[in-house]
């Protein structure tokens, strides 16, 4: 059992490593710097392939921006300053987490607002219904009569024809 676990574990590890190898290859010698650069750039959108981050895109623009990020970190810039470098050139669009601004209020609070409105409507409707008398939920007389007529018609039709084979 233990051997199976080890084999399985190493297979998963190998698969994980080979997946990681397909991402853009890190090239700096300094692993700490590289890790910091990757952490910052994985929050930033690559403008060429817009659904990839700058950290894992292989587009030449992303390669250049990673190089710039590395250089800025080496100059002793803070994470925020590196992000500012990007937004100064490409705008808030590069940020995967858009900042809270007058123009993004709806983006941030729209969904909770809609949920709250929907919830309020639901509560009002349910409370109104709970106050209704039980017979309000019975079928209307007219409909009940029609349903009865349909049943009767079906019954007589079935009576005249042979049953299913």
């Amino acid at each position, binding site marked *: 059992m233990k051997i199976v676990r080890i084999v399985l574990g190493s297979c998963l590890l190998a698969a994980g490593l080979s997946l990681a190898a397909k991402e853009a290859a890190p090239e700096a010698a300094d692993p700490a710097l590289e890790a910091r650069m990757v952490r910052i750039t994985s929050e930033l959108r690559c403008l060429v392939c817009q659904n990839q981050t700058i950290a894992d895109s292989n587009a030449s*623009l992303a390669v250049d921006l990673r190089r710039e990020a590395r250089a800025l970190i080496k100059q002793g810039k803070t994470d925020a300053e590196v992000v500012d470098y990007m937004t100064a*050139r*490409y*705008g808030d*669009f590069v940020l995967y987490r858009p900042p809270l601004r007058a123009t993004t209020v709806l983006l941030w609070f729209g969904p909770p607002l809609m949920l709250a409105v929907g919830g309020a409507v639901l509560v009002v409707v349910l409370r109104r219904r709970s106050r209704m008398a039980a017979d309000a939920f019975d079928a209307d007389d007219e409909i009940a009569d029609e349903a009865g007529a349909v049943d009767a018609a079906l019954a007589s039709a079935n009576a005249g024809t042979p049953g299913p084979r």
Partner: protein
Amino acid sequence: MKRLWFLIPLAAFLVLAVVLAVGLNRDPREVPSPLIDKPAPKFALARLDDAAKTVRLDDLKGKVFILNVWASWCVACREEHPVLLDFAKKRVVPVYGLNYKDTRPDASAWLARFGNPYDASFFDEDGRVGLDFGVYGVPETFVVDGNGVIRMKHIGPITPEVLANKIEPLLKKLDA
């Protein structure tokens, strides 16, 4: 009045549908540049045709000009090239080229083959100046006014329509 309340969800749905339809029909590739109405980034680059001559942004100031980012490897640049050549012939404003991440032999051969609309091209080998201008998809075109402020950016090839509807009216406004 109360009878019409059931229409509220329908109205809300229609509003949402219109908003989403507008959003879906926008081109996500056209990212608004934060550099519009900001001073153009300073640069100092060698000319494409003369590596010994350095051109600075300050050398170009004082006159409205167009800066077109191009490269010999850029397919869409060929598409806009005839439009640019025609425009340059009119001599309305100087047209400069930013030769982005290219090699000198390739770029020079490209100009020799397709024609040279540029008053001068600047050689941005590693694309750093391009980055400062927020370039992400060549070709891109900037209109810079006499004070060195970027007034317009167009992403993608210039078409006669873009020239007639966007660039030329702006140039007229800037009195170039």
